[in-house]
């Protein structure tokens, strides 16, 4: 693909490298948001078990 540009009669064509680069960038941003959500969930789970271990919360009520 010569020049990585798509030839056009009148308009400048899109740059393949730029489009792929932007696509990867958006993908990484979206993936990063998901990772943030995952880490947040892991933090909450860890906090839950820490509180449970310390006895600050309980799961079963007193009879």
């Amino acid at each position, binding site marked *: 693909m010569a020049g990585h540009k798509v030839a056009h009669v009148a308009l400048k064509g899109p740059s393949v490298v730029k489009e792929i680069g932007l696509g990867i960038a958006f993908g990484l941003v979206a*993936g990063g948001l998901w990772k943030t959500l995952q880490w947040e969930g892991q933090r*909450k*789970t860890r906090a839950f*078990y820490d509180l449970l271990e310390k006895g600050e919360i309980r799961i*079963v009520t007193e009879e």
Partner: protein
Amino acid sequence: MPKDSHAFLGWTNRRFPSSGEQEQVSLFLGGAEQSKNEPNQMIVLEWLFLTIAPCDAAEPWQLGSQDAATPTMQGIIDLHHDIFFFLILIFVFVSRILVRALWHFHYKRNPIPQRIVHGTTIEILRTIFPSIIPMFIAIPSFALLYSMDEVVVDPAITIKAIGHQWYRTYEYSDYNSSDEQSLTFDSYTIPEDDPELGQSRLLEVDNRVVVPAKIDLRIIVTPADVPHSWAVPSSGVKCDAVPGRRLNQTSISVQREGVYYGQCSEICGTNHAFTRAPGNIGRLLSPLWLSRTTQGASYPRSKLLQRAAGAVGSRGARQ
């Protein structure tokens, strides 16, 4: 059905309302519920746990997995989240390229299409990169797979789960002396017409399996007739019961007390959908579990459980 209900930070599971009380509940985002009678200081802490399902059974309109109660299930959830990152990456990338291609090469914007026959560089790149992604997926996947396959050498207790059409039999035979019979009981699903107020439909059983928490358990699964499968989603367990002289083994180590529900996961006849695989794993308690579960010191079942609790307790103390 045990009298006590699960209360987490003062929030009472809506499946187990106190008898005689009219619970007013309001819905949070995510579906968790809070009684309007709860003090406000509990609200802040409860919001932290919105993403955690309030009980260890399937919820209506549930999207994700049930909350993990064992390291195995936590590993499964984490692996899913790791793979989902790549799924999102690829989905966003491909969608963007597709949309941009449609945008740039619209027939009005680009009336004369270019005749492209090949592009060596891009072909090499689009072969190599997609083959690297599965390598990143394989590493945590194999790690989890092999850790799940590890056999627990010295479990605290071994329970046999025997599948029948259409109920379960559980056998605790570790702690009986030679002249005693194993503790064995059947576990039938409570029929649809019979549940008490607060019980989950077609999930509750008459006799729950009671096991200690935070300790390695071995479950041996086998059927008496046709294939069954013993599955508890929140523990990350699914173990097939295969007819013939075959015993399948699985290990779990439940990290918190609770009542865990499961269902038969291998078609076994007309009432397959009405068979509970574990019959509730039941209350998973600390090594002092016995005091909450037996009906009295003289009850035959309690003697075996006392012995088991003693053995488990001493093991727990050693740990």
